[in-house]
């Protein structure tokens, strides 16, 4: 795994650190975890609790904000500050928090319904603004908490309680969506691959601005096996593309497949691993075109040829930093505010 690329002001600059050694236990709250046994959410929780001590941040300066859904119960289990808010609105709430408190590490926990259905508007605008947030999108391709309706990432034709004859809608590809929304950091990982999960989350946390990480998460109750082909030993090497910054894009047990640009259409296509045209992945490219093309390799139904890893990681000033700069500039230029002078205004008169 490639180390995260260091870019300008790191994501956690300004967040106080601690010298006291932390352990997973420090980040575990006293609340009993109530997800269904076998739910993919457990693995993500364990990975986050497991890697946060590595960041060495003051625990009191970490905040988890979530929406509504099974995954959104996450903050209750973290021994940090946290808010379990309302359906779809976590990015908006976290925007106000992060923009007014640059000394916090703010995390958003959301689901595919929460982030892409009811909260779609907030998600794209948080990405566009580049608010300093790390957003973990738990994509189980189903509405878990409301017991199994299709979601905006469900494959077309999906049979659920609300679509007995199959769903009619084309699904969102969250990575494509985020790239289209001007995201500066976009990654994808899988609940069951602890090491990969940790590496992508670490890179996301270190990024200043909005990082969006799509996590393929199994809902073993309402959509079991949704990512089976990407996880199963027998199939995964043939369908999972691991992206690594600066490395050629190859997959297959022996790297026998590659990805190259079709010169006539400009889109990406699968080729032989030793094809001279195999592209090299550059997450830091200014132009998101190649990252977007990579995101389009996945079959929208089966998810075969899904790339995972960091698609894009570029530098752009974070919203809260820009806002703080304007406040400083205004005070530098005109001096700090004088309330009495403000109230008096330019045209006062005196009654003797």
């Amino acid at each position, binding site marked *: 795994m490639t180390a995260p690329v260091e870019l300008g002001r790191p994501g956690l600059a300004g967040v*106080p650190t601690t010298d006291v050694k932390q352990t997973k236990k420090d980040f575990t*709250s006293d*609340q009993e975890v109530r997800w269904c046994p076998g739910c993919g959410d457990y693995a993500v929780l364990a990975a986050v609790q497991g890697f946060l001590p590595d960041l060495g941040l*003051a*625990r*009191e*300066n*970490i*905040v988890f*904000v979530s929406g*509504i859904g099974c995954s959104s119960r996450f*903050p*209750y289990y973290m*021994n*940090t*500050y*946290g*808010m*379990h*808010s*309302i359906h779809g*609105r976590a990015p*908006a*709430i*976290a*925007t*106000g*928090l*992060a*923009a*007014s*408190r640059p*000394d*916090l590490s703010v995390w958003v926990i959301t689901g595919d319904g929460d982030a892409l259905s009811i909260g779609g*508007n*907030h998600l794209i*605008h948080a990405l566009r603004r580049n608010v300093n947030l790390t957003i973990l999108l738990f994509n189980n391709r189903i509405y878990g908490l409301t017991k199994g309706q299709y979601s905006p990432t469900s494959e077309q034709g999906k049979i659920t309680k609300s679509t007995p004859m199959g769903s009619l809608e084309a699904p969102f590809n969250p990575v494509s969506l985020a790239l289209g929304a001007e995201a500066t950091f976009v990654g994808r990982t899988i609940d069951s691959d602890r090491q990969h999960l940790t590496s992508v989350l670490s890179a996301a946390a270190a990024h200043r601005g909005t990082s969006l990480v799509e996590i393929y998460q199994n809902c073993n109750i309402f959509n079991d096996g949704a990512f089976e082909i990407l996880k199963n030993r027998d199939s995964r090497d043939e369908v999972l593309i691991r992206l690594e910054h600066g490395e050629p894009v190859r997959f297959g047990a022996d790297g026998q497949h590659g990805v190259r640009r079709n010169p006539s259409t400009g889109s990406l296509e699968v080729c032989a691993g030793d094809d001279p045209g195999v592209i090299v992945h550059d997450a830091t490219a200014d132009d998101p075109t190649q990252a977007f093309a990579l995101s389009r390799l996945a079959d929208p139904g089966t998810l075969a040829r899904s790339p995972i890893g960091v698609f894009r990681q570029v530098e752009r000033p974070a919203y809260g930093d820009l*806002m703080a700069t*304007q*406040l400083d*500039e*205004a*005070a530098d*230029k*005109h*001096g*700090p*505010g004088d*309330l*009495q002078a*403000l*109230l*008096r*205004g330019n*045209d*006062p*008169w*005196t*009654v*003797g």
Partner: protein
Amino acid sequence: MTVKHVHELDRVVIRFAGDSGDGMQLTGDRFTAETASFGNDLSTLPNFPAEIRAPAGTLPGVSSFQLHFANYDILTPGDAPDVLVAMNPAALKANLPDVPKGATIIVDTGDFTPRALKKVGWDTSPLEDNTLSAYKVHALDLSGITMEALAPFELSRKDASRSKNMFALGLLSWMYGRSIDGTVKFLHEKFATRETIRDANVAALKAGWNYGETTEEFAVSYEVKPAAMPAGTYRNITGNLALSYGLIAAARQSGLPLFLGSYPITPASDILHELSKHKRFGVRTFQAEDEVAAIGAALGASFGGALGVTTTSGPGVALKGETVGLAVSLELPLVIVDVQRGGPSTGLPTKTEQADLLQVLYGRNGESPVPVVAASSPSDCFHAAIEAVRIAVTYRTPVFLLSDGYLANGSEPWHVPDVESLPTIDPGFATELNHDGEGERDFWPYLRDPETLARPWAVPGTPGLEHRIGGIEKLDGPGTISYDPNNHERMVRLRQAKVDGIAGVPDLEVEDPSGAARLLVVGWGSTYGPIGAAVRRARKAGHNVAQAHLRHLNPMPANTGDLLRSYDRVLVPEMNLGQLALLLRGKYLVDVVGYNRVRGLPFKAEELADVIMEEVGAL
């Protein structure tokens, strides 16, 4: 030169009316500024179309600005103009029904062409038939005279005629003895980089003044002496400006950084614009993607220890409802400003109404008590904002602050307070563990203050107080998730008791100089001025009438019920179909009678006075 007479008057109502592009709001603002610095009491009512530029010369495109000024304290912008300044046929036609017989009409004849007359449905010119025979009419070619006066500037016809509003302002300034110095200074600042425009406007302004002084058209000018006001520093202020300043002041008095989340909507946008200018006060303004995000961001900022505020109008309140409910559950400070406008739906964006009272009180799921404070005049928006923040911060609760289109854009002189006299607000952040747990001290985010029932506000960054809150019902005390039936009932009642028990809500005061009134008139919000003016009229006519005005709509003052019951009759005028009346009847079992109008305009004092006298007569 003829000798001009000066007549003394105690009050005058002037209405400037013209096309949306004629600069009538600016003209009105400047005349107001001149009048304010002269020392009159005054009250203004801008009235403009929702369309930015409706087709020129049409009735929907008419924009107007009414100003009432006097040598005594006045309460309203005036029922009807004593003087109408009409800049085109449409302005004359649209405003004529409001002008009482005998009033003065100054009309610019420059645009009285057959085509322009046709546009507003006049076959013949009202200047030539007897349409205006009941008025004192000054039919002047203001456009033509302005263009003549500006000939040396070699402007295009269009540019020259644009200054006709300044000519009219100069003329009216002469008529009422206002100094134009302030406006000259204003034009110098406004057009600092466009010298020709600046000089042309100043020339037009002065030409208007000189025209009044020299022509025989105007034989008299008028004098309205300054009003006696308590000593102090004054300024003119609109409701939206006063509200913005109130929020900045409250942030300073509480030591909290102000965070505004807002989505543009008439008539609230000016608060967003204003607060965006004051970054050096540490004010953060966030123009969100929608109203839901706006309030969400404000609530997120509150969670982080800021003074979270969101500003909107009725349609925005509808969208924010779920987040207000979350704030009720989280018990965090938050101020939601609703500058009401005509509804339902898009309704009348630029007109006033007070029909959101029940929405802010009850427009949410579940038992969701939220304190409500309503401003009663433009300058009162300042103090109402501070009061809303006091309640929000002290009781860790969302608070609705109600204004409306009339208060937002209307203006009046304001006795500028000494900032040292403003109340301080103590956020009292939690910094310590507050509970004896099993073997060790721990932190309970819902352990309430026994007096206020407010919960501790522990902000991220405070070591040892890490906690999780959310919209799911919480266990009384620890604040962890609880679905227990008895706990839910306790929490519902606790949240209600906290709001019901808000201290510092003063008793409802009654004004009854006679001490013998049997009729009480009760209002809330922006009807304060019109009700007050109407009550004065009724008293002048020999009737005993008592008046009381509610600033706190939730909780209401403790003596409200007793007070209502102590009168034989209670009249509640409202710019809705009876929302406060419904509350008073339901809460206090008093058979109040409503007087309800929803014309998008404030009440007229005369109309209300008639209603009041009728009610007194029926007793």
